[in-house]
C-alpha cells in the first residue's frame, strides 16, 4: 500500500526527462493530457506504468490500449489487443472495453464474438469475470456451509432453512460449473502476437523450418515449452502448434 501511495514514476515528457514522485492517479491523469495532445507514446508509457502499479484497474489497461492503438507503431496493434484483453478480463460488462477490443481485433482480422455464436449467449456467458465467478463460488460455498451447520444443529429451524440452503447450494454448483467451463474453454496461458507476420517454426530455433506465419494481433495459447527465448504456442482455431520467439509474444 505504501508503494501504491507513493510511487516513483518516470514522467517522460518529450522535452524534460526528469524523475518525479507522482501517485498512480497523477500519472493516470497526466497520461490523459498527453493523449489529448496526441502525444500517444508518452501517454502509453504513463498508462503502462499505471497499469503496472494498479494491475486490477480495467481503466488503466483500457486507456493503455487506446494510447497504443493511436500510436500506430509496429507492434502497437498486438500490444493494444493484449491491453484490451486484460481490461476485458477484469471488466467484461464494460461496453467501451468490449467495443474497442472488437475494433482492434477486426484490424487484426479476428472477431471478438466467434462466427455462428449468438451475441446474447456469448455476452451472457461472459457476464462475469473469472474473479467474480471465483467470488461467487466462495460466497455461495460459505453460505451453504453455514446454513448446513445451522441445519444440522438446530433441528427446529430446518423448515425455515430449507429454501436458503437450496438456493445457496444451487448457486455454488452453478458457479463451480460456470467457472470450470470458462477455465476449460478459454485459451490456456493466452498471449498476443506483437510482430507482423511472425514466423512459427517446428522447433525452438532458426535451424527449424518455418511452419506457418501468424499475423500481428492474433491471440494464441502458450503451451508451456520454453527454450532459449523460444516459446511453444498453439493456435486452437486452426489447430496449429509451433515455436515462436518470445519477443514476438505479449502475455495477456
Amino acid at each position, binding site marked *: 500500500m505504501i508503494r501504491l501511495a507513493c510511487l516513483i514514476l518516470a514522467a517522460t515528457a518529450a522535452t524534460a526527462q526528469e524523475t518525479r514522485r507522482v501517485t498512480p492517479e497523477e500519472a493516470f491523469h497526466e497520461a490523459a493530457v498527453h493523449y489529448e495532445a*496526441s502525444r500517444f507514446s508518452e501517454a502509453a508509457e504513463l498508462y503502462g506504468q499505471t497499469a503496472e502499479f494498479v494491475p486490477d484497474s*480495467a481503466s488503466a489497461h483500457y486507456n493503455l490500449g*487506446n494510447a497504443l492503438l493511436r500510436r500506430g507503431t509496429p507492434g*502497437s496493434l498486438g500490444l493494444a489487443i493484449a491491453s484490451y484483453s486484460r481490461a476485458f478480463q477484469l471488466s467484461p460488462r464494460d461496453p467501451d472495453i468490449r467495443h474497442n477490443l472488437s475494433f482492434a481485433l477486426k484490424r487484426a482480422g479476428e472477431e471478438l464474438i466467434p462466427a455462428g455464436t449468438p451475441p446474447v449467449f456469448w455476452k451472457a456467458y461472459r457476464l462475469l469475470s473469472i474473479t467474480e465467478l471465483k467470488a461467487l463460488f*466462495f460466497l455461495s460455498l460459505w453460505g451453504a456451509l*453455514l446454513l448446513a*451447520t445451522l441445519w444440522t444443529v438446530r433441528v427446529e429451524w430446518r423448515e425455515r432453512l430449507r429454501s436458503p440452503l437450496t438456493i445457496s447450494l444451487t448457486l455454488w454448483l452453478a458457479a463451480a460449473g460456470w467457472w470450470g467451463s470458462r477455465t476449460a474453454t478459454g485459451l490456456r496461458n493466452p498471449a498476443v502476437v506483437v510482430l507482423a507476420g511472425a514466423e512459427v517454426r517446428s522447433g525452438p530455433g532458426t535451424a527449424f523450418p518455418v511452419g506457418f506465419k501468424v499475423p500481428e494481433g492474433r491471440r494464441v495459447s502458450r503451451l508451456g515449452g520454453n527454450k532459449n527465448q523460444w516459446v511453444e504456442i498453439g493456435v486452437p482455431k486452426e489447430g496449429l502448434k509451433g515455436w515462436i520467439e518470445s519477443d514476438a509474444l505479449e502475455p495477456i
Partner: protein
Amino acid sequence: MRRFAPLLLLLAAPASAALDISASVNRNSVAINEQLVLTLVVAGDQSNLPPPQLPSMPRFNVHNAGRSTNFSFVNGRISSSVQYTFVLVPRLIGNAVIPPISVSNGREQAQSQPIQVTILRPEATPPASSAAPARAAPQPRGSRAPARARPGSESQAPDMYVTAEIDKSSPYVNEQTILTVRFHTAVRLLGNAEWAEPVTNGMLTEDLPPGPHSEKTHEGRRYMVSEIRMALFPIQPGKLQIGESTIKTRVARNRSVDPFAADFFQQFFSQGIGSEVQVLKTRPITLTARRLPEAGKPSGFTGAVGKFTIDAEADRSSAKVGDAINLTLRVEGRGNLKAIGDLELPPLDEFRAYEMVGSLNQAKDADGVTGSKVFKTVLTPKVSGTLTLPAIPFSFFDPDTGRYRTVKTKPLEFSVEPGDAAAAPAPISFGAAVNGGGQITTVTEDIRYLHNQLRPSAQTRWASLVASAGSLTVFPAFLFIGSLGWSFYRDRQLQDPVGARRRGAIGRARSLAREARSAPDPASAAAKLSDALSGYLGDKLDRSASGLTLKEAQEALKSRNPGAPEGHLDQLRRVWRELERIRFAPSQSGDATSSGLADCVRELIDALEEDFKA
C-alpha cells in the same frame, strides 16, 4: 525533375504489393567518358527489405553510391522502400543492356524491367582539357596503359590519393553537414574501388549521390577525381570525430618476366602486367557541434533544423456536416527530415479531427538531404456555414541565421452545408420523436474515448478480496464438520437413553466428588458423596438413585458381573455405611475429613467402573 524521379517511383509503388522493385537511369545514352546513375527502388510492406541482386554488367564498371530508406506508417501498418544508387562507368562503346534486377525475401520475388543504354564515343573535346597541362596523363577510364610503378617515374606525385573534408566545422545539433571524400587516381584501376564509411559516433548519416567525375592536375600530374558524399547530422553537442574513410582498389603494375619464377608462364602470358591492392585512408576530422540556443525557442519546436516550408491542402472546399475532408499537411525543405516530430492541430471547435498519420519522402542530391514529410488526417465539420481552418504553425531552427523560425499554412475556408436529413447526425431525443425521428449515421468507426476513473469499483474490489480469500473456507468447513459430529452424538443420546445414562455416570459421580471435597464439614461432604455414589450405581444399573439400597446395589452388582472381586463389594458396603453414619450422626464423624471421604468414594467409583467395563 529528374532528381525527383525516384521519389515519384516511390509514390507510384502499389500499396498492395508485398515486394516490388523498379529500376531507372538518369539517361539512356552516355559517352564513354561520362557516367550513368542507376537507381533501384525496393518497396514492400515489411521493415527489413532485402537488397537487390545485381547481375553481371560487363560493359560497365559499377560503383555503389549509397542507399536511403523511407518509412510510412498508416493504421499501424508499415510500408517502406529502400533506394539504392549505383554509378555505372561505361567500358565499351555500343548498345548495352542493364539486365533485369531481381530481389527476393525468400517467399516472394520481384524483377525490374531491362533497360537499354547506348554508349557513345567520347566527344572531341575532353572535359576540363583546357585547364589541363599539355603533358599526357593516364586516363583511368578507357585507358589501357598500365600504371607505372612510382619508383623511377618522372614525377614524385603519387599514383592515387584520397582527401576528405566537411563543409562546416561547427554545425548546430541536427544541422546538415556534408562530408566529401575525393579519390584521385592517375592510373588504371582493375575492378571497382571499395569504399568503407568512416565511423561517426554521435552523428546520424545519410549517403548522398556521388559527385561528378572531374579531372585535376596535381604536382604536374593529371588525376581523375571521384567524389563520395555523406550528409552528417550531429545529435549531441560537443566535439565529435569523423573517423578515417578507407578506399581499397586494385591497380595494374608492370612486372619483369622472371624465367625462374614459379609462375613464369602466368607472367609470360600476362605480358608482364600484374596487379596490386592499394588501400588509401583519410585522416580523421573533428567537428564541434553547437547546442541549439534556448533563447527564442518556440513552444511547438520539435527539433527540426534546416530550411522548411509548410503548406496545407484539403481535397475539397465544400462539404456537408459530417462529411470527411482529407487534410494534407506537407513540410518540405532541406535538413534532417527524420527529426521532424508530429504536427499538432490547433484546438478546433467546428471540426472533429482524427488521428494524423505521417509519411516521409526523402530525396538526395549533391547538396544534401531534401524532401518532405507529409501528414494526413480527416476532418469532419460539426456545424454548417463558412468554416475556417486556422493557420497551422511549424517551427524550425535556421542554422544560416542562427534563429528559430515559425512558418504557417494559409488558413483554409470551407463552405459547409447542413447534412442530409438521413445522413446528418440527428440529435438524440428521449421519448416521442418530435421532429419525425432521425437516424444516426456512422461516419467512421473508431475506438471509444478514455476512461477517467483509475480505481476499480467497490464491487470489483470486493470480488477480488473474496476471490483471494478462498483459504478461509476451512472455517465454515470445520464448523460444519463439528456440527455433524455434535449431531451424531445427539442422535445417539436420543436413540439409547439408558446407554447414555450409563456412559455419563462416571462423569457425574466424579463431578459430585470434586464438589464434596470443598464441603464445609464432613456431614455435608458425606451427603454429596452419598448422592454421587447412589447416583453412579443407579445410572449404571438403570435404577432410581433415590430408592436404591445397599442390598439392592450389591445384588445388582453381583448379578451383572458375577466375577467382580468380593473386595470391591466389601469396600462398597464399608463406604456406604460410613457415609450414612457421618451423614446422619455428624457427632460421630471422628477425625474424618471432606477430602478424605471424597478420595475414598473416588477410589471406590474407579474400582467399580473397572468392574463394569470388564
